[in-house]
């Protein structure tokens, strides 16, 4: 059975073939951020860098707005997007807070409350 037949998990987008196809350009750009030179090139001219990787409008808008949920909808994978977050100096609690509409302190408190 195809993965799309499975009941959705709220707030969760499994990175399946559909997402991998949709997000290829975006993820390829973010994969390039393993290289310090590429990170610097992106920061020098974000628009030119996005064009070089042929991001579509939805993906480019997500990058411009630093909109993590929008980037996931546009096919972004968590691991590659984390490299984009690294450029912005954001850690995983910052990213968590951005996605859940919390402050970073609230997000950290939510994690600690599971203990």
């Amino acid at each position, binding site marked *: 059975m195809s993965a799309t037949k499975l009941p959705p998990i709220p707030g969760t987008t499994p990175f*399946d073939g559909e997402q991998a196809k949709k997000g290829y350009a975006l993820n390829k750009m973010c994969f390039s951020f393993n290289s310090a030179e590429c990170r610097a090139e992106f920061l020098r001219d974000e628009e030119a860098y996005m064009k070089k990787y042929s991001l579509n409008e939805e993906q480019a808008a997500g990058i411009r707005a630093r909109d993590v949920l929008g980037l996931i909808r546009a096919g972004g994978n968590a*691991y590659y997007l984390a*490299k984009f977050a690294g450029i912005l100096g954001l850690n995983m609690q910052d990213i968590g807070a951005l996605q859940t509409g919390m402050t970073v302190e609230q997000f950290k408190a939510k994690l600690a409350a599971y*203990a």
Partner: protein
Amino acid sequence: MARIVGMLTTSHVPAIGGAIAKNLQQDAYWKPFFDGFLPVRKWLDEVKPDVAVVLYNDHGLNFFLDKMPTFSVGAAPEYHNADEGWGIPTLAPTRGDVDLSWHLINHLIERDFDITTCQEMLVDHAFTIPLKLFWPQSPCPIPAVPVCINTVQFPLPSAKRCYALGEAVGDAIRNWDSDKKVVVIGTGGLSHQLDGERAGFINKDFDLKFMDSMINDPKWATQFSIHELVEKTGTQGVELLMWLAARAAVPGTLKRVHTNYHIPISNTASGLMALATL
């Protein structure tokens, strides 16, 4: 023949690398995590394994979506870490054991695992940080062979399949014509989710049940589909697949050396287990 001395499993969050670099092991936030490794290092000092087989998952350092092998085995004389883009220090290279690599490769193919072989393979934090936690010296004093499981792009291999892979890895090691002592390591987990509106999800009840099953009922988690595991443990909680494979490589009754569970490290429920062969 080679002998397996036991198995180790631990979480592998990148932030641990940052904490090590900043010497934060005794900081209040990190201490409950790092202190868990002290009894495990003591055990390693006693049993002195000669080589480690490390089951881990790459996070976009060695593999990209252009080619994404489900299972891959390293066959390099040396494994290099590199810039992963999120600002953690690059660790020293780890020596490989090419003889063991090819023995594993031959045995796994014979057992119908259509693995990818890698004579060059960059290893990311999921390989380097656990070694650093178990052996803080630099470089890692013993050689290691990486076995990578895809947890980036779905469909992922099932829990049942990862367990079978682990069984085959264990059989291969025990059939290796060598007098070496081997330790099997599985890295990742436990419950956590980085992406989406459900980011920050943790499931302590499931994690504790899973850790208990690693001792008393190793196949327990193989009953769950990947979809069920994502639902119960988070999108990245599925990294428990590496724990399952490591346990399968060292079957039967094992002696508990040490276990630790601590919430949170970064966004993750961190777990640590050291189980010794009787």
